[in-house]
């Protein structure tokens, strides 16, 4: 386990973390800030990916497709908001869970119906293809740098909007006491519509961004949804800073666990045992981390917005 490998894996971990953050960003907004459990976030991510993949050949490649996918996911978000979310704002989390779960089933199957069950994808855009040499013999794909950039940019944007603008304040206020916000003269309904649609677009953006490296297939959003929730809960619900740091932490723990757990175990136990236990431990790493964090801090790392 050389030092360079450790350094590289750390970089990989950070990159994976930022990818997670990118996916979690929209969810942080809609669930973390607005307190609406939107399980459909995962399928919105999938729709962003599908739109990009399907449009790419007709829209002059990745960037053209991305430019089309964003307004389209926004529009789909608006439709979904109008039909399903709006009646559920004032209702309990359980209703939101059930309804948005229904949406998952519909969209996953609908996508399969429309685009087939086979994975599809888009090639890396020329502009961002290739790799940069980090150290001797070690290449880092340029596109991954782009993901890092997108993650950082989204984080910054969210942080500025939510923590720094009046819009953000109103969203946070509306999440805890919508009637009061409207009694003070703000159209809460329009506000919520804007937020959920924007959240859908962020999900779509994440989906679009991963198409060049990940396969686009029905159900691709399900596992990612869980990871996004892990990120938010570990970070502390409602905290953008928390979600950001948690995403990096999880990216690191997962990557380093995958890279070194088995090797480290081999120093202690026999190779076959290590080969058996190591991978199991590595796959659990994220969950162990989450359980550990919540055991010590039941509100997550940054329980800054304890409502109540």
């Amino acid at each position, binding site marked *: 386990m050389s030092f360079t490998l450790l350094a590289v894996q750390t970089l990989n971990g950070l990159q994976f973390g930022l990818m997670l953050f990118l996916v979690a960003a929209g969810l942080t907004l809609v669930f973390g800030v607005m307190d609406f459990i939107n399980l459909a976030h995962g399928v919105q991510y999938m729709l962003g990916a599908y739109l990009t993949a399907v449009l790419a050949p007709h829209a002059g490649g990745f960037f053209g497709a991305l430019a089309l996918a964003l307004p389209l996911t926004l529009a789909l978000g608006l439709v979904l908001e109008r039909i399903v979310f709006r009646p559920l704002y004032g209702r309990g989390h359980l209703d939101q869970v059930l309804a948005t779960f229904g949406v998952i089933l519909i969209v996953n199957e609908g996508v399969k119906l429309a685009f087939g069950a086979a994975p599809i994808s888009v090639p890396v855009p020329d502009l961002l293809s290739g790799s940069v040499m980090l150290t001797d013999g070690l*290449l880092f794909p340029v*596109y991954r740098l782009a993901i890092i950039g997108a993650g950082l940019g989204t984080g910054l944007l969210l942080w500025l909007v939510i923590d720094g603008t009046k819009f953000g304040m109103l969203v946070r206020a509306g999440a805890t006491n919508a009637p009061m916000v409207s009694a003070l003269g703000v159209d809460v309904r329009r506000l919520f519509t804007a937020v959920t649609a924007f959240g859908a677009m962020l999900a779509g953006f994440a989906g679009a961004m991963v198409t060049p490296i*990940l396969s686009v297939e029905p159900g691709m959003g399900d596992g990612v949804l869980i990871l996004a929730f892990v990120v938010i809960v570990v970070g502390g619900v409602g905290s953008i800073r928390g979600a950001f740091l948690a995403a990096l932490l999880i990216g690191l723990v997962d990557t380093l666990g*995958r890279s070194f757990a088995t090797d480290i175990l081999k120093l202690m136990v026999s190779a076959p045992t290590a080969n058996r236990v190591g991978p199991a431990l*590595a796959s659990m790493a994220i969950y162990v981390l989450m359980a550990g964090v919540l055991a010590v801090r039941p509100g997550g790392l940054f329980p800054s917005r304890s409502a109540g």
Partner: protein
Amino acid sequence: QEKLKIGMMVTLSGPSAVLGQHQRDAFNLAVKQKDGKLGGLVADVVIVDDELKPDVAVQKVQGLIERDKVDIVTGVTFSNVMMAIAKPVFESKTFLVSSNAGPSPLAGKACSPFFYSASYQNDQNHEAMGKYAQDKGFKKVVVMVPNYQAGKDSAAGFKRHFKGEIADEIYTQLGQLDFSAELAKIVAAKPDAIFTFMPGGMGVNLVKQFTQAGLSGKIPFLSAFTIDETTLPATQDAALGLFAGAQWAPGSDNPASKAFVAAFEKEYGYVPSLYAQQAYDSALLIDAAVKAAGGKVKDKEAMQKAFRTASFESVRGSFKMNTNGFPIQDFYVVKAVKRADGKYATEPVEKVFTAYGDVYAKECAIN
């Protein structure tokens, strides 16, 4: 007129649905080509989705047997589903014709005269790659497989014929999306080649990321069930030049295969994979067996004998039934290419095994 009732159980939901789709389409094609008849009987095919949940599969197979009163259950995409349904199917004395999964217990200790495979035993494609790596003189190979039973079997299969050094054995999480950490590890190990088994979306991700990391062309990429026609539409150029082990490829050079590929593409507009081929052969096998048994599908003994000896023109070329109900066949190294029509497909590069049976047959007590 007497009917032949067939229940086809394949995975049609979740990320692996495409595998089931290939099987379903190919089976339907075969039935259609034979004017809706198999072995001279009107074939009534019920298709069910096992959802990749073994307990759901058990339930559904019970429905097929008791409600639909099927004579034959075919399909089955995944080994864990196969293991779950084997017992109820055998106990009801229904025939089980696998068009994909071939778990080792069914080839060995738990073999059954009601089980016949038109695919392969799970280890074999991996063995083929191991043999190939050995023949090519690779000294140091990294093995990377998902951490589940089929993955472990795969690694074991590869190692059966490969005698060089295994520089590292990496077990990834099932359904893993991002392989950058593993790829960095592989680069650090400086192997002569890597061997991997990453079915479905995992394979797509791995292949793309492997190529994006600039490793394609530097480290030979040997695989099984990773580079095939279910993943090529997604990986496209990224997979070109990467190797896989298989008993068949759309580029196989025999008349039956060419006819099958042409008909399949005409019917469905996509290139058939080995899953499709196996399902197609399953239909041919059933057809031949029922014919040989004179259409007496309720005569279990006659049917068993017929399955054992049935001969048909397999798309893959050579095909002979082993004592344990698994095929004895040839294995190839295949490679992803872009065809003249712009579609991606695999084609054979080199034959690795000739008339090869599995290693578990000797443990099987039927004879």
